[in-house]
């Protein structure tokens, strides 16, 4: 059940964030932000172990009784980044990306 999808830049600011129950947007923002702790932890752990760095899926990021959060959505993100008019580091405003995100939310949630 995808209720919130966020793409975060490596400097930890949101490139894209969207959630389905819009009235709870703020809470999602807080949650996503806090989950960056775990992301950082996991990423640095990957770097240390030099293990399978191709494993992009980081697993459960933030323990919450309400939702489970995952990190996904790489292909579409790659598409956005391949757009020659997209300036890496800018917030994502692609309609196609938006559409795919909505699709994921509708399909599963």
């Amino acid at each position, binding site marked *: 059940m995808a209720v919130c999808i966020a793409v975060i830049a490596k400097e930890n*600011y949101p490139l894209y964030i969207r959630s389905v129950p819009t009235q709870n947007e703020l809470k999602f923002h*807080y949650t996503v*932000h*806090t989950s960056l702790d775990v992301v950082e932890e996991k990423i640095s752990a990957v770097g240390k172990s030099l293990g399978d760095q191709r494993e992009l899926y980081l697993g459960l990021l933030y323990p919450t*009784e309400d939702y489970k959060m995952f990190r996904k959505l790489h292909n579409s993100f790659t598409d956005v980044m391949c757009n020659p008019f997209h300036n890496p580091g*800018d917030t994502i405003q692609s309609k196609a990306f938006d559409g795919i995100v909505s699709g994921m939310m509708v399909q599963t949630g």
Partner: protein
Amino acid sequence: MENKPIVTCAGDQGLFTSLYTSLAQQLPREPMEWRRTYGRAPKMIHLEANFVQFKEELLPKEGNKALLTFPFLHIYWTDCCDTEAYKSTVKEDMMRWQNSLRTHGSADWVIIVVETNDTKKKNKTNILPRSSIVDKIRSDFCNKQNDRCVVLSDPLKDSSRSQESWNSLLLKLRTLLLMSFTKNLGRFEDDMRTLREKRTQPGWSFCEYFMVQEELAFVFEMLQQFEDALVQYDELDALFTQYVLNFGAGDTANWLGSFCAPVRSWSGLLLRRPIDMEKRDGIQRGEASLLDLRSYLFSRQCTLLIFLQRPWEVTQRALELLHNCVQELRLLEVSVLEGALDCWVFLSCLEVLHRIEGCCDQAQLAANCSHTVGLWAYATDKLKSLGELCGLVSEKGPTSEDLNRTVDLLAGLGDERPETGESCWLVLRTPALSINDFKKELSHAAMEMYRAIGRLRSARLVGKSLAEFYMRKGDRERAETFLQEALKSYVSEGWSLPVTHTRKQIAECQKLLGRTEDYLQTSALLAGDVNLTTEERKHFCQEILTFAGKSGDHSNKVTLSMGVFAQLTRLQFHPATASVHSGAILQVELTLRCLMPVSVHIQQVAASIHFDVDHGGTHGRSKGAQRQTNPGTVEFIQGNSSAGPPSSSAAGPSLELDEIQDRSPSDNSLNSTGVVCKNTHLIMRRHDSNSPPDTPNCVSPPTVAMKEGAQMLKVQDVKLEPGNNSIIFTAPSGQPGTYTLRQLCATVGQVQFVLPHIYPSVQYEVYSQEPQLTVEPLSEPLLAGLPQMVKFTLLTGHYAVKKGDALQLSNTDTMPILPSTSCTARTSNPAAGCVLSIQSSDKVTSISLPPTPPYHTLEFQLEVLCIIPSGEVTLLFDNEIIFKQKTDLMVKSLCVCPQMSIDCPWSIYSTLLALTFYIPFKTKHSLLSAGNRKYIQVCVQNVSDVNFTLAEVKLTEKQHASLELQSLNTKEQQLLCSKHSVFCLWEVRWKDDLPSCLQCVFSANFSPLNQDVSAFKPFHYQFQLERVTTLYSVRAEILPPAGEQHCRSGFLCGLEVCITRLTEPAEGEMAEESKTDTDGLKTTKLMYEVADSSSNWAVCGKSSGMVSMPMTANATHKVQIEVMPLFAGHLPFPKIKVLKYLPHTAAVAIQPDPDSCVENDSLSLLDKTLDDQGDTASIRSRGSVHSVGSGDQQQKGVAMPRLEPFSPGQVFNHSHARQVLVLPATDDHIMEVNAT
């Protein structure tokens, strides 16, 4: 572990009792390898057993699947060694034992025969061989199973034999036990699987199955196989979870109904007992609620994990479990009392933490707080919501409704259990004060732990909730600290929504704290925050305006950062050069993007200016301080004040580079050069990760102080609308110098918004300029000899032209200023008058100027005429006229540069101005001879772009009146087109003697084409011809070979050169170049040379030679030379040159003149063709300008014998341009064709 596998003992109880201790001790001593079915890895296990007396009731009845009470092995003990006794009693007893086992289908048994020496001794007489009793038993009972009967010898003796027999017995027992386990467990597992496969059948019950699988888990636990036991529970867990998920997906199982019952008890996990029998019974009865089941399951998992020394997995699983339970209850739509789950979760968290603390020491706990912190935070969270629910945290205290709820919740906790419920009881029962302390403690603990494990964001989130709590408790200062910290983190990472939310909380906090300045700053930020609704933004904006509107004393003024209120986006100068002369109007247009949601009335916008006196005197040229593409416009790149993505700032400001050159002060030579980065302070700051990216983002406002500059740009009463606003300042431009804009300040009542530093720096220049007068031709090029228009441009600079001011032009003869009636001036000031009056006197032309204000342009035109110098020698050294030969190869044009001297009213010095006039004509002359007759040719070439009419062409000779120059020109008027030439010819006639030197003046009138006669201007050209008289005639003949009529190519011919003296020697000639021969005859030496430049002829023998000519008329000298024609056809005669030969004896030691040496280089002249003669003459004539009679000097100047050419008219060549027919050689039948 109390539970051990049960082993029954039958037979001689006394015997068993005597051996029990050592048996029970020794059995687990050695491990055994347990081979497992289903490919499970073999394990080494230590076997223990619970030896009980055999009773028939112990044997499991049909269908009883209990494993814990299952006897895995049956032992029959006997020490019988008497055959009789065996037969009479023991055998019977054994038979009975065997039968009862068989009826229960138990095949796991063993008979132990104990032998002692004592018994042997006792019954010596009846003794059978030792083996016989055993053999008997074996034959009676162990049909094909000989290993089912074991002998134990002397068990109580300490001998090697006894030890050996003990060992073999133990090994046997262990083997048999394991076999029994494998068999019985295998059977059990199969049954269990079968049962599980039936789960789709309607009557299937999870609780039943649970009991079965748990039995297995118990056995594994009993065997100390905790891993296996855990697996059983995990399987159960997974199965249940799957069912709940299926339920969520609409696939309902009947048995789940019992779990959907409303939750009545929420007393939390109970982890202290290994088995919570109370809950287990509930499950067995099918009465357990979901929480009961989960609690029991987890308590078992927890127990096993702790056995396995994995306490941290407990915490992790606990958190998952708690989240999961909450979700499952929601999924199953179980009705739960509000707050009950919070209670359960809170208690459970504490219970888990308590349990973990119980099995770990403090150091371990501290090292692993990353595992426990989640629970702490969760507990904190739940406690918070509980507190809110029960009204414990509100300042008024709980309402009656809250109290009712509390009572309900307490009921759900069930019996008061001191060891678990304590904290929750405490929480709910104690007054608000203590719960708050408790909560505070929990929060702080969680925060500390998060911080310790580096999860700063989580710590801040907890901190934020703590802040909310403090806020409610009225401890706002503490709350603000936490909020600020959280805000900092959100801002630095660009999370706009949390930033807005936190900022709102801070604003509330600051308002209550009465920190006006901070509050206004935050309000301003919020008022400009797009994440808020317009109403909210308006509210915060109004807060500022309300404060601003308060009439307070001036000390009360609040200074805020401009960035939160409005952004300076653009600055534009009018005019764009940002550089004006002093006193001129310079406007500065600011574009301010107002971030407020409503329009704001500003009392004053002011920009302070720093003034530098500019000593450099750059005279208004912009120094390129603003290097924008749009001149005069400065764009300010914004560090976004609200927390957008910091992408733009992440890239950093672009480098601003400048070239630096280090020059030596003494001679201005370049010492070093380099590139310097002007904004290092900004770029380097980026690398400092600790510093906040943008000052306006900081909630504590930077200390902004408005520096009172000496000069300010001010605009009063401006209304700033939301969005871009344009404000126009009129900049002061009194003093010349550089003005730098430093700060910007907007004042709204009591509030000042200050932009402390305008960057990139913006400056404009005010300059002062000296008056400048320039004179330039109206059309290029200026032609001499014709009236030409010249434009005077006067830039008044700082000088104001007053009435009566006049320019005084000193007249020159070569360039008179033509008076003109219609002379007006044009000024850039339309209001000024434009009447120009010109008054000329002998010396001075005075031009009175119309009054003109400073920094204006005054233009007027004058007609001037440059008189063409006639080329007379005396004029060439005139100071004012310089002849120049233009290096332009195409048009070898002469020009004159007369200088004007102008006295200006603003200066005591005269201004010297030079104009360049081009002479439109180039004139050449040449002397042509035909025997004794002489002709003078003048060529006038028009080098200008204008077409002229040439009229009244005239040539006069000044000195010799007797001389007559007869014009051979027919036309009165000649058209002389641009770049074309006109040739005029005169024959020279004389009566007595031809003078050797002629002073000629060529004159003509010219005017541009199609103009009337009055426009004709005279043109003069003076030149001098020397040595005009023909001295020698040269006549050449080519004689065909003897006997031939014509020359043939390849055959030698004779060339006869006949040089004849035509005149008596003149006086000068006698003196200068003759010498007297020994015989008294005056002779002069000539050199002749036959040169064929076109390779038609081969000269055989000497091609040149000396001839001594007597200096009398008609003296003739003939020279015979053999030449050979190389080609057939009409060949021109080879050229014959005659030169003066000057022997070295004639030399007189005079300083040699290298210039003339070069000029008269005879060898170079040898190559000159006759066509060039005219040109040579003109060069000579010009050359002679430098020094009269230089030829004489140079002859004497050189000690070597020299050759000197004759002047063009002195030698007349009769055979010039003659041709002779040459026939081809007779046998020349091959024709050569050269194609090139």
